[in-house]
């Protein structure tokens, strides 16, 4: 296989994940305590002498620290936001020091349910505490401490990642100068939670789930995870995008009067589900969907989102996509309204893109031009 360097000149190239061990306990919002933990992260570009050019990129549900570039021994394993981040890309690694981190509770190397609990010698499994966006942000702040980053030039994310970018401005107002919030919501709607609940039920009712302690049984609740992913995937795409991509196309010449795959969309969802169930941990899926459900910065302020941002100091770029029905543009406008109420610097763009929620991951010229322009301003003010 040809190296990515030649195929994609604007790639950060081959990257290596790194691990830091943290021995000071991390207290969760629930009151639970993680005595010690590892965080796996990647960095691209270089930290300047003033240590002022660091940008944290937060992941959403099914991604992790591998944000950009590829692995030398797995050149096809390209970072999940590689179209956004790299030399000369909208978030330019020739200007910024970019950090991607797998959150606590994850399943890609940072301490999570499938990690061994040193106290018991067995995987945490069902005993891993329920983690919140606030907890993740606290862990990320500790990573920043260790990397010598006093304040981030920007924290950026899409979807659940955007919630972390928002939470940073509330939890650490003096440690974030810009918050780039893409395809976000200030909290989940009942419908959003309902979809998450169906996904969780698919996992927890799988006979291979074993109450979350399936590791010892040599099985994983693959069927449940597969279903969860299929449900999730439907919510990431717009009706139009799905129709455009698959329509009612059949796998064969005609319908077969059976319940196996007839339509291309069925085949696609099954493929996505199968693929996902092979690499993702079911307990992590439960944790992350719960973190989504619980995210609600206004809750501590009498449901007044404006009050939640009263202490925020960052500048904001908020971006939504017209066809995103999971976190539709009005959800972003709620955030913008709250920021306006506090007279925060905020720009808001509503990108007319057909792809649904997943648009935040795609290479749309207007969207990328906007992010590029915004980071141009961030760089100018370093």
């Amino acid at each position, binding site marked *: 296989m040809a190296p990515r360097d030649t195929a994609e000149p604007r790639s950060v190239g081959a990257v290596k994940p790194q691990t830091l061990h943290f021995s000071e306990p991390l207290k969760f919002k629930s009151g639970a305590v993680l005595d010690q933990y590892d965080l796996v992260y990647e960095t691209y570009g270089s930290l300047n002498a003033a240590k002022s050019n660091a940008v944290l990129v937060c992941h959403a549900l099914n991604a992790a620290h591998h944000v950009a570039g590829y692995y030398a021994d797995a050149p096809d394993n390209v970072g999940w936001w590689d179209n956004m981040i790299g030399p000369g890309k909208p978030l330019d690694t020739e200007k910024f020091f970019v950090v991607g981190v797998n959150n606590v509770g994850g399943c890609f190397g940072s301490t999570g349910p499938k990690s061994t609990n040193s106290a018991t010698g067995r995987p945490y499994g069902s005993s891993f505490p329920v983690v919140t966006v606030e907890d993740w942000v606290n862990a990320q702040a500790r990573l920043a401490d260790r990397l010598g980053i006093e304040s981030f030039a920007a924290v950026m994310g899409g979807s659940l990642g955007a919630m972390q970018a928002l939470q940073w401005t509330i939890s650490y107002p003096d440690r974030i100068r810009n918050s780039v919030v893409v395809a976000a919501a200030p909290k989940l709607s009942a419908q959003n939670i309902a979809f998450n609940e169906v996904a969780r039920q698919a996992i927890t009712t799988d006979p291979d789930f074993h109450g979350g302690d399936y590791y010892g049984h040599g099985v994983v609740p693959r069927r449940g995870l597969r279903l969860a992913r299929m449900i999730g995937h439907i919510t990431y795409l717009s009706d139009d995008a799905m129709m455009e991509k698959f329509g009612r196309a059949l796998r064969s010449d005609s319908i077969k009067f059976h319940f196996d795959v007839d339509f291309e969309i069925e085949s696609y969802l099954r493929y996505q589900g199968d693929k996902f169930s092979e690499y993702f941990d079911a307990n992590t899926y439960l944790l992350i969907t719960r973190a989504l459900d619980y995210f609600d910065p206004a809750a501590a302020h009498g449901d007044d989102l404006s009050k939640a941002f009263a202490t925020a100091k960052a500048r904001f770029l908020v971006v939504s996509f017209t066809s995103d029905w999971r976190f539709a543009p009005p959800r972003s406008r709620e955030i913008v309204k709250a920021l306006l*109420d506090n007279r925060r610097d905020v*720009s808001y*763009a509503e990108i*007319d893109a057909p792809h649904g929620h997943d648009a935040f991951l795609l290479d749309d010229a207007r969207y990328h031009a*906007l992010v590029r322009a915004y980071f141009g*301003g961030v760089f100018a003010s370093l």
Partner: protein
Amino acid sequence: MTGHEQGALSERSDFQAIAAWVKPDSTVLDLGCGDGVLLRYLRQTRNARGYGIDIDDANVLACVKNGVNVIQSDLERGLAGFDAGSFDCVILSQTLQAVRRTEEIVLDMLRVGREAIVSFPNFGRWDLRLQLALGGRMPVSRELPYQWYNTPNVHLFTIADFESFCAGHGIRVLERIILHHGRRVTTLVNIFGSLAVYRIQKSR
């Protein structure tokens, strides 16, 4: 929308008039803000904290490039997301002639802003009158550079029309400046003025 696309700061003779009326350190909402140069000018000259509203993708991008806060939104959908009296000043600079829901937008401006500044091209200027009356053709001028078939301007009106509108809608005119090619016009303004700038307020 239309106004701010038409060129550099020097060509926008209403900017200085607007800046003179914006109090230092005030909060400003600029409707149809274009590329954001007015807001940038108000920040530089008046230390105003401003936000622009524009629907056009290219304008939103230009504002971000200019380091100006911009909210992508359709003016025609009104200012429903903005609380009453939440801004010191709401500006509509050379855009009123290009909106469809003229009446609603002016009244909404006066709800959201403690006062408002409106500037518009005067369709009553003598040369425009002559183009139509004697030439029999729809007028074209520096302020109104479009042909009838490609103009974004859907509501053309005169200084007299605007003042009559204000009187009929309980709107108080606090100040006005009438300009032609950047120079102030003080006599027979509806005949000699090409650009009108008004500072208005809801009558109490």
